[in-house]
């Protein structure tokens, strides 16, 4: 592979990506594209972004050697990139800081966001409070129920949470509704999209704001282990934490990149959220990419124990990295993710998010077949406090 410089000017990663939106949104996306191109070349913009990440988010996040768990598995050494230690408890804030700074440059005083598990909603509400903006978060009505602590968190931060009752009442429907709000209030409103998907330029700008994860790893791993890891692994829903840690490694030879999708009850059951494993390319939410769809091109309902991975599409750059072979994609079931969740709690004293538990489960499955001097770096993208109700319910416990 030559110097990697995707996307092209139209937002394409090979055949994927693009800007598949109604005419009513084209001008707003063009405006965003132009403004981001300016910001991208403005050192002052990045200086402020870095300053916020350092003093508000608490970056750089450390990398931690999961020694006891590695010992137990008896193979490769597992290292965790601790995005769970960020302010608000997940990687999502890296992106919302960047987009809020863009919104401010563009003079927009109102921000909107979609959210599944609520992490992106909380991160959006947080930056809106921080920069004095009005914030409206769209959330599937079913997710509002299963993530009630995050709903209250957003309200505490001054955001309005709008439950979305259309369609499957989950993340994809929240995204539809956020787009509808944007098209109606396009003059005053900035749409903070939470994952590395959607119409151009979102996949690129979300990636750029999340790439700080991989950039720090590239510096930290040699300090800790004397070299870069053998494998970098991250969970993939829309794909923002994965692309954030992968991107700086794309041009580094010898580092395997592995994305882990949610296999739910198992790929064969059909109840999963793994478009790269079992979908085919199609257009949803403004971009072309692998999509869980039926024979008639209708988007299928997805299932995952983790609300943040419960999405039928996947960001266009992951689609490209899969086809090109630069990254591999695998999947992990609900049960495997839950087992890894408990192991991480017991052996390392860290409660991981159910999303991140998918990446941990892959590492736990793979490490035993590797040698003790090899290294797997896992993106621990968020903490699991938000998931304790879900986990308790699955164990038959009412909190």
């Amino acid at each position, binding site marked *: 592979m030559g110097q990697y410089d995707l996307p092209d000017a139209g937002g394409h990663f090979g055949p994927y990506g693009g800007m*598949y*939106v*109604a005419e009513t949104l*084209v*001008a*707003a996306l063009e405006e965003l594209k132009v403004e981001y191109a300016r910001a991208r070349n403005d050192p002052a913009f990045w200086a402020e972004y870095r300053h916020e990440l350092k003093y508000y988010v608490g970056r750089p996040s450390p990398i931690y050697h999961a020694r006891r768990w590695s010992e137990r598995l008896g193979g490769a050494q597992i290292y965790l990139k601790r995005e769970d230690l960020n302010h608000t408890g997940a990687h999502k804030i890296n992106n919302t800081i960047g987009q809020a700074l863009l919104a401010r440059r563009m003079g927009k005083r109102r921000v909107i966001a979609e959210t599944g598990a609520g992490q992106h909603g909380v991160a959006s509400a947080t930056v809106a409070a921080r920069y004095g903006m009005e914030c409206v978060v769209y959330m599937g009505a079913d997710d509002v129920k299963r993530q009630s602590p995050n709903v209250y968190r957003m309200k505490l931060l001054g955001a309005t949470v709008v439950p979305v009752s259309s369609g499957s009442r989950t993340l994809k429907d929240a995204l539809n509704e956020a787009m509808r709000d944007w098209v*109606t209030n*396009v003059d005053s409103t900035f749409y903070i999209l939470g994952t590395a998907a959607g119409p151009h330029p979102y996949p690129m700008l979300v990636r750029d704001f999340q790439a700080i994860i991989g950039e720090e790893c590239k510096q930290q791993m040699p300090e800790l282990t004397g070299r870069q890891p053998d494998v970098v692994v991250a969970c993939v829903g829309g794909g923002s934490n994965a692309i954030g840690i992968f991107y700086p490694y794309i041009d580094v030879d010898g580092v395997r990149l592995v994305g882990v999708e949610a296999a739910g009850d198992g790929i064969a059951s059909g109840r999963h959220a793994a478009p790269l494993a079992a979908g085919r390319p199609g*257009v949803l939410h403004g971009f072309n990419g692998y999509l869980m769809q039926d024979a008639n091109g*209708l988007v299928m309902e997805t299932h995952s124990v983790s609300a943040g991975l419960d999405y039928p599409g996947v960001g266009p750059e992951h689609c490209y990295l899969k086809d090109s072979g630069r990254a591999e994609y695998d999947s992990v079931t609900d049960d495997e993710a839950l087992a890894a969740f408990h192991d991480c709690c017991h052996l390392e004293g860290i409660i991981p998010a159910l999303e991140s538990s998918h990446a941990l489960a892959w590492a736990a499955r793979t490490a035993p077949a590797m040698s003790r001097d090899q290294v797997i770096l896992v993106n621990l993208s968020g903490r699991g406090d938000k998931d304790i109700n879900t986990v308790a319910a699955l164990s038959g416990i009412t909190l």
Partner: protein
Amino acid sequence: MSRIAACFKALAGGRALIPFITAGDPEPGMTVELMHALVAGGADIIELGVPFSDPMADGPVIQRASERALKHGVSLALVLDMVAEFRRRDASTPVVLMGYLNPFLAMGLPGFALRAATAGVDGVLTVDCPPEEIESLAALLEQSGLDPIFLLAPTTPAERVARIGRLARGYVYYVSLKGVTGSANLDIAEVTGKIAALRENIPVPIGVGFGIRDAETARAIAVAADAVVVGSRLVQEIEAASPQTAAGNLTRLVAELKAAIR
């Protein structure tokens, strides 16, 4: 000459009324009857919505219509069958499919264009496919004798209008407001001014839609526009009516609107 061009020619400067309904709403067996009911009321062209699971550009009324149709398993193939059935009794009223790209892609674009033309479809409006993304789509439709219909928005800059004007056939659909279908914030003076400006670069008739809810608004819009598109208001009527009264109610409502723009 395409059926759409012939329709505008026959109107000889009169305004066209373009009602929209969603195929398969409230259930698949009624769609052909409702299409004939629209014609009986004075519809000049019919826009037939292809139901989609994620209708991002639509307001709640048309979203619900889509959901009702999908509950009955309405697919693109079935919508084409409905058009073919409609054509057995009506050889002249143009039918335009309005839908989202993915069901068209899933059928395969060349196959879709061919099957749509064979069924008697006259134009295709792909809501979420701007001309930049699939340059070949307009040509592909035209090769099969279908008119590619494009949306224009209040925010579309002049150079884009010109570009779309070169590709557009049949008519263009000017979105009269910033918002989704069925919104309530229509500014008639602004729309009238915009249409005059669009004429410089748009060689085909200009239809206006999104937010036209009654005869009075239709009349005001028709002063400047060549065609008036009414969707959500009609779909609401279908939602409120019983299976026995829906057709009659649509005919009456369309006749009212048609009288207003004459």
